């Protein structure tokens, strides 16, 4: 049994192969230029002064000592932001949204989390900036803080925003509250569904705040030129997103802002939000020189956006044969200091694996005194999957039904209507479950002292806008220009789709990621959309090239375009066998037939890729110490079509391992007031090489009907099943249901003590 299987339905020439990535050599030789490697002549270094308090009113800020510190060139506070100088009327639009965005970048009146920026210094180097920053006096009036999501929801809880009122799908509540929004979706008759059940189980689950843990800290370099043009070189998942944020906060027309995305050292959703860009921009405007900022690891933990902690209640009714009759969940996720947790996305994902007639989901978006949460790989879905898949495991144990059989019995398939109402098109969940059932891992004996858990997950994989331009060089090599930042190999996967469409060699496509002035709007790299949506743009641009090449051939042969076809990289006359040109031959002749050829496309695909995954985890537990070890792990996932199977496997393995970390050891420790206590890689315990086995993979390929090669998108769903798979495995060996993440050794011991075992 090989450890990496690909269950292919269709073979292509380039798509589905494993070429070396175009940016590979630069990345193994240290030549690749990441954001932090940017070094323009005369660059100043910036440091951001951050609040030591999770909740406080800023009474005054005295920057005078810092300003006069030798080597300091500028000091700014929120007073330097347009929010401070323009009236509500001048700002127009949604004043609250702008205030939230601007205050998140730098607090104007209150700090809402430890690490909240209050001032920034630009100096000749980072040491000087740091020393000067320590001289800034901020007078705070410390306020009570609220940290726990359920505490924050209680009536009478300390209010974080005086004006925030619950938005119940367009209806605003009368009283202020920390509940920013509530949303409910319901299908069928839930009461009747539960009444029809033979067994109804209900449990509560919680998960801790976790971080994406990308290894490269946030960084940016800004240069606000004297002509008014603002240039940014930064590490981001979305250069256009940075442009939008900066232009919004600084009240600049977007055309005045150019963002050059540098190589990015990981993001997983956490590098969608722009934290440093506006700050460096203002410092650059004040100093007239480029200004660069690099977050420390502590700043990354305390002041970028982690994934929310959550509380969830899940209730499931089943018949004795295992058929689900009704489901219900309430989910509350903490948004951090400003509204916008991913709970609304969790609503779509929570029960999307199952075909169930009756269901109700309530989601609450709750503000607390923690850093504002950001996207993290399938935002919202992993928490929901942990709760739902854990309870399903409990039901399987109760009914003595095999967990894969149970899921097969209830699996969502083509035509299944989800609770929010949408109907599944062709999806591969059943195929994933079947691949799991027949996998060597699942058939193997469970070792003594070890438990085995199974869990599933779902992510919709929606499309969004992408733009691609490609030019045909005279040597037949195609320059592929795109706006999608390459985090994990998308240059390769887009080049492969381009080569496949043009019928040319992969090596004859040269991809480049360009700045916001050089390509049409392109949405973030995230949400498992890039290989799918930017792939669609590349395919469409390649079709544009093909059409133009047909018209060139028509000129050369003095034939009608209708008589010419472009098949597998050959341009030929349909009826005259003599008239035939390879892509390269014709490329050479473009100079004399009207000049270079450029293809272009901007797309905004509307369908969903619908990713499903099933994971199997074996976890050994030392019941005397509570220590866990993942001894075997298999990730099975429907990729639709794996464009580059190695990088698909990498996404599956990486997602699984982030999930294993989330399951077992990763968490923000906060004191009672909301101060993070473990803001380092030493104490925020991400898995190391020594904590893991090889991660076996099975790529299932059930083609996505919405993409010519069947691509679905693969990055997100891989993180949805592992927490429950691991938790279910731990339950298997300890006999205790672990309903709170992370499942630390301490919690395992406590569970044993409470139940009078071990």
């Amino acid at each position, binding site marked *: 049994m090989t450890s990496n299987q690909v269950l292919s339905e269709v073979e292509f020439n380039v798509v589905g192969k494993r070429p070396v990535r175009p940016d590979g050599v630069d990345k193994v030789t240290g030549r690749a230029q990441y954001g932090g490697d940017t070094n323009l002549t005369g660059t100043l270094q910036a440091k951001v002064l951050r609040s030591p308090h999770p909740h406080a009113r800023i009474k005054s800020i005295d920057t005078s000592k810092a300003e006069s510190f030798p080597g300091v060139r500028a000091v700014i506070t929120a007073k330097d932001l347009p929010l401070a100088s323009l009236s509500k009327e001048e700002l127009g639009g949604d004043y609250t949204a702008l205030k939230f965005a601007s205050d998140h970048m730098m607090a104007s009146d209150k700090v809402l989390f430890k690490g909240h920026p209050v001032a920034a210094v630009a100096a000749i180097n980072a*040491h000087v900036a*740091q*020393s000067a920053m*320590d001289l800034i006096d901020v007078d705070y009036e410390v306020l009570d803080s609220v940290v726990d999501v359920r505490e924050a929801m209680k009536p009478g809880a300390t209010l974080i925003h005086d004006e925030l009122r619950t938005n119940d799908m367009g209806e605003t509540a009368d009283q202020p509250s920390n509940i920013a929004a509530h949303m409910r979706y319901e299908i069928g008759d839930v009461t009747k569904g539960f009444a029809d059940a033979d067994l109804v189980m209900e449990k509560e689950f919680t998960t801790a705040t976790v971080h994406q843990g990308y290894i490269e800290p946030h960084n940016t370099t800004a240069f606000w030129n004297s002509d008014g043009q603002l240039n940014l070189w930064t590490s981001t998942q979305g250069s256009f997103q940075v442009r939008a944020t900066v232009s919004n906060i600084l009240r600049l027309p977007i055309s005045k802002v150019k963002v050059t995305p540098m190589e990015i050292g990981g993001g997983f959703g956490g590098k969608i939000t722009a934290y440093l860009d506006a700050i460096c921009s203002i410092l650059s405007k004040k100093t007239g020189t480029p200004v660069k900022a690099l977050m420390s690891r502590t700043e990354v933990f305390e002041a970028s956006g982690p994934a929310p902690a959550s509380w969830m209640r899940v209730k499931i009714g089943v018949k004795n044969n295992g058929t689900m009759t009704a489901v219900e969940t309430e989910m509350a996720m903490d948004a951090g200091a400003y509204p916008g947790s991913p709970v609304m996305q969790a609503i779509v994902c929570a029960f999307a694996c199952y075909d169930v007639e009756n269901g109700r989901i309530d989601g609450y978006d709750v503000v607390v005194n923690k850093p504002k949460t950001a996207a993290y790989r399938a935002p919202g879905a992993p928490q929901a999957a942990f709760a739902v898949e854990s309870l399903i495991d409990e039901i399987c144990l109760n009914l003595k039904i095999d967990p894969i059989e149970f899921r097969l019995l209830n699996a969502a398939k083509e035509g299944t209507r989800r609770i929010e109402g949408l109907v599944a098109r062709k999806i591969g969940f059943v195929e994933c479950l079947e691949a799991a059932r027949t996998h060597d891992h699942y058939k193997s004996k469970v070792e003594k002292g070890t438990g085995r858990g199974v869990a599933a997950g779902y992510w919709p994989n929606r499309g969004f806008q992408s733009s691609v331009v490609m030019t045909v060089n005279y040597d037949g090599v195609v320059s592929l220009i795109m706006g999608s930042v390459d985090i994990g190999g998308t240059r390769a996967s887009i080049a492969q789709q381009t080569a496949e469409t043009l019928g040319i060699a992969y090596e004859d496509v040269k991809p480049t990621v360009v700045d916001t002035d050089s390509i049409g709007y392109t949405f973030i790299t995230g949400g498992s959309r890039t290989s799918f949506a930017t792939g669609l743009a590349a395919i469409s641009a390649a079709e544009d090239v093909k059409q133009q090449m047909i018209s060139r051939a028509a000129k050369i042969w003095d034939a009608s375009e209708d008589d010419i076809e472009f098949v597998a990289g050959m341009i030929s006359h349909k009826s005259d066998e003599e008239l035939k040109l390879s892509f390269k031959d014709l490329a050479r002749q473009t100079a004399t037939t009207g000049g270079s050829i450029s293809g272009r496309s901007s797309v905004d695909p509307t369908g969903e890729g619908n990713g499903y995954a099933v994971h199997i985890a074996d976890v050994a537990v030392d019941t*005397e*110490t*509570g*220590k866990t*070890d993942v001894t075997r792990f298999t990730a099975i996932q429907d990729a639709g079509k794996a464009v580059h199977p190695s990088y698909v496997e990498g996404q599956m393995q990486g997602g699984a391992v982030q999930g294993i970390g989330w399951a*077992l*050891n990763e968490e923000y*420790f906060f004191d009672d007031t909301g101060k993070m*206590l*473990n803001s380092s*890689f*030493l*104490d925020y*315990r991400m*898995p*190391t090489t*020594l*904590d893991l086995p090889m991660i076996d993979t099975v790529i299932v390929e059930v083609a996505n009907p919405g993409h010519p090669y069947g691509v679905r998108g693969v990055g997100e769903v891989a993180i949805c099943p592992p927490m429950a798979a691991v938790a279910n495995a731990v339950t298997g060996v300890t006999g205790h249901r672990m309903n709170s993440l992370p499942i*630390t*050794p*301490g919690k395992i*011991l*406590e569970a044993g*003590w409470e139940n009078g075992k071990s």
Partner: protein
Amino acid sequence: MEPFDFLSPSSIDEAVQTLASKGNQARIMAGGTDMLVQMRAGRGTAPFVVDIKDIPELNEVSYDASKGLTLGAAVPCYRIYEDKTLSDAYPGLMDAASLIGGIQIQGRASIGGNICNAAPSGDSIPIVIALGGICNIAGANGTRQLPVEEMCTAPGRNALEEGEFLVSIHFPAPQANSGANYLRFIPRNEMDIAVAGVGSSVQLDASGQNFVSARIALASVAPTPVFAKEAGDSLAGKPVNEDTIQAASELAQSAAKPISDMRGTVRQRTHLIGVLTRRTLNNAIERARGA
């Protein structure tokens, strides 16, 4: 980081003079793996950093089966576990040296530095105490010796007077039929701070069935590493069996005065001390019998 001047004396005398002239303005650096992190966080910054790695005595590793081991205070961990003679003679020391940080840290961090850093969780300290390590300290008034168990006085504070520095640690020669082991409990398998740690050394009689003596020390369960003297002493002259080991582990538990923090609760830590004491004693016994 605040600016500092970097001084690297090349002899003990020079170091003594340097430290005497700078007084409390100087901070001593060996591997720097703890110190640089602290200074970067604004803790313990000083106008002068005195690097003692150029001093020959601080790099000394001399082992003699009859005299024991003298381990220079700046000797990085890898030199212990990569030296087969040393790791055979002091397997407990090897246990600790090979789990401080990752391989990169072990290329720089030293046992001496670990002791002077005086963290309650210092991974090498319990085993050095269990092995009866003695600190050789140099200062303006000459040299003095101090048992390792007296070196740590509070979290991050050691018994060195101003102007003094640790030159080396001396370990008695391993006795016949002796063995030692250090284990810590961490949630991951590497790169972590001990939730609890136990170092045990035992000497058995020729039959291997009875304890001659034992020393047990604990990490992460008090403001300083703990020498659980009564726990070790309880084994002297006793037969090797589950009951005597259990009794010793219970004494070790009562010597532990842990707090609850983000790494663990009082109950968890006390429980772990019991488990780890048993496990380290059993491993040490096995090594003693195999030796």
